[in-house]
């Protein structure tokens, strides 16, 4: 497997604090990779740096072999790199269906296209069906529960048929049943060739879903390996339990 995403020596400082410290890792194409680490280890910052929401201080990021340093989030999204947020960000004034359609990306010309083209509608209907959201398709997103919003955000980023999806804590605040649902969606999309990089706290989720785990502590990559290997690695336990 080749590396779809390659992060080398990425560094980000906020004032005195070095949030990400010469962090390096790569995500293999077709993998489900977890990015774990204790609170404050810089996971979300890494996400923000990769997706262009924050500028990096130094280091390089390559997506599919091309450097994407300094790219804007929208451009990356159109290139097939999409993400979700820890606190699901959906558009409350749009309906569930529209939340999907608006995320479909598309060409310049499509800006002037119909609000909801036949292909958009079909694609959205598929995803809604798959994510069991059809019954709320015409509700405003602001009327959804938390868990439904997380599902919706996840479904929305799939609209553009991305190659790499960065999920920021897909299970945060959702109940066990929904966690299972999330896991099965991730697996089934992975089977169609979508690569996932997931920030996750729920270790059992990581163990059952992911095939590679990157452990971050204080902004540094301390360990990379299979879930089982990472689980038994004393460095990881130290990172979690402290010194």
């Amino acid at each position, binding site marked *: 497997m080749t590396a779809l995403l390659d992060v080398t020596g990425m560094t980000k400082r906020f004032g005195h604090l070095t949030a990400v410290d010469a962090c390096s890792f790569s995500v293999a194409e077709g993998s489900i990779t977890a990015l774990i680490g204790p609170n*404050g280890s810089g996971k979300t910052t890494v996400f923000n740096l990769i997706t262009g929401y924050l500028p990096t201080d130094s280091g390089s990021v390559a997506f599919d072999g091309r450097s994407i340093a300094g790219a804007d989030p929208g451009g990356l999204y159109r290139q097939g790199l999409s993400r979700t947020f820890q606190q699901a960000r959906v558009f409350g004034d749009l309906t569930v269906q529209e939340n999907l359609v608006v995320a479909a990306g598309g060409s310049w010309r499509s800006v002037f296209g119909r609000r909801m083209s036949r292909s958009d509608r079909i694609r959205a209907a598929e995803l809604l069906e798959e994510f069991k959201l059809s019954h709320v398709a015409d509700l405003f997103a602001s009327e959804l529960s*938390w868990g439904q919003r997380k599902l919706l955000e996840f479904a929305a980023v799939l609209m553009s048929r991305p190659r790499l999806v960065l999920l920021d804590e897909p299970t*945060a*605040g959702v109940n066990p049943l929904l966690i*299972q*649902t999330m896991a099965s969606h991730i697996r089934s999309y992975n089977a169609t060739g979508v690569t996932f990089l997931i920030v996750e706290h729920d270790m*059992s989720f990581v163990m059952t879903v992911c095939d590679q785990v990157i452990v971050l502590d204080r902004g540094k990559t301390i360990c990379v390996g299979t879930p089982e290997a990472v689980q038994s690695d004393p460095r990881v336990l130290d990172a979690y*339990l402290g010194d």
Partner: protein
Amino acid sequence: MTTAINADGQRKPPLLEIDDVVAGYGAGVILKGVKLVLHRGDVMCLIGPNGAGKSTVLKTVSGLLRPKDGAVRLEGEDVTTEAPKAKLRRGVVHVPQERSLFPGMTVWDNLLMGGYLMRNNKILHARIDEAAQMFPIITSRRSAHAGSLSGGEQKQVELARTLLFDPKLILLDEPSIGLDPKSRRLVFDAIRSLAAAGRTILLVEQNARSGLAASDQGAVLESGLVRLTGPAAHLLGDPEVARLYLGASQHARPSNNAPALSSALAAVAAPTPQEELT
């Protein structure tokens, strides 16, 4: 029913009793019946994996979050539904996880804010003097802007500020988060000196080893329930703790079958613990 967790302090009366507390945000539930007892003069460290509900426990105690069920008792009195201000007057001080100093104000002004509810200046200044003995930084850097202090120094000022309330109970939420090792040592030193001065502390700590090392008692929270309690030193060596952190057999491995429609609907209705996500 919530006895027998105190190894060495049976004679001390319980200061805080958290009794079967159920709490959450919106319609969701994070704490699913938490029981804890804290005795006067004890330092208890609450540890557990992310999302277990540790911060939520502190919030139900300080009044920032009203429990849906169960009771919070302080010195035997039911204070479950009291507002934060009322709790503050009872001497329950909450130091949140985020930095709670006012960055543009001087260290001294930050301290004075700790005495906001206090009308008696004499007592206030006496308490500041008292705090200064434990935390010399508040006099040595008194006119520095709080924002210019290092993270560890800021935590020290925050801890010093709690003393102005002559607190019965200090609730510390992840005091060491985001700090470099040196600052972390400063903070745990400070917690130890507070403990030495006989303050009762309920501490939530991600850094379980340092946290337990600074505490008398420990409790492990997982998925909204207290899984383990005991003297801090015992928990430090308990292999079960590591399992709770890094995931293990308690979890049924999720099946690959798509869930039935009804359960999926029930699932999506579970809402948000926004505070737990940070």
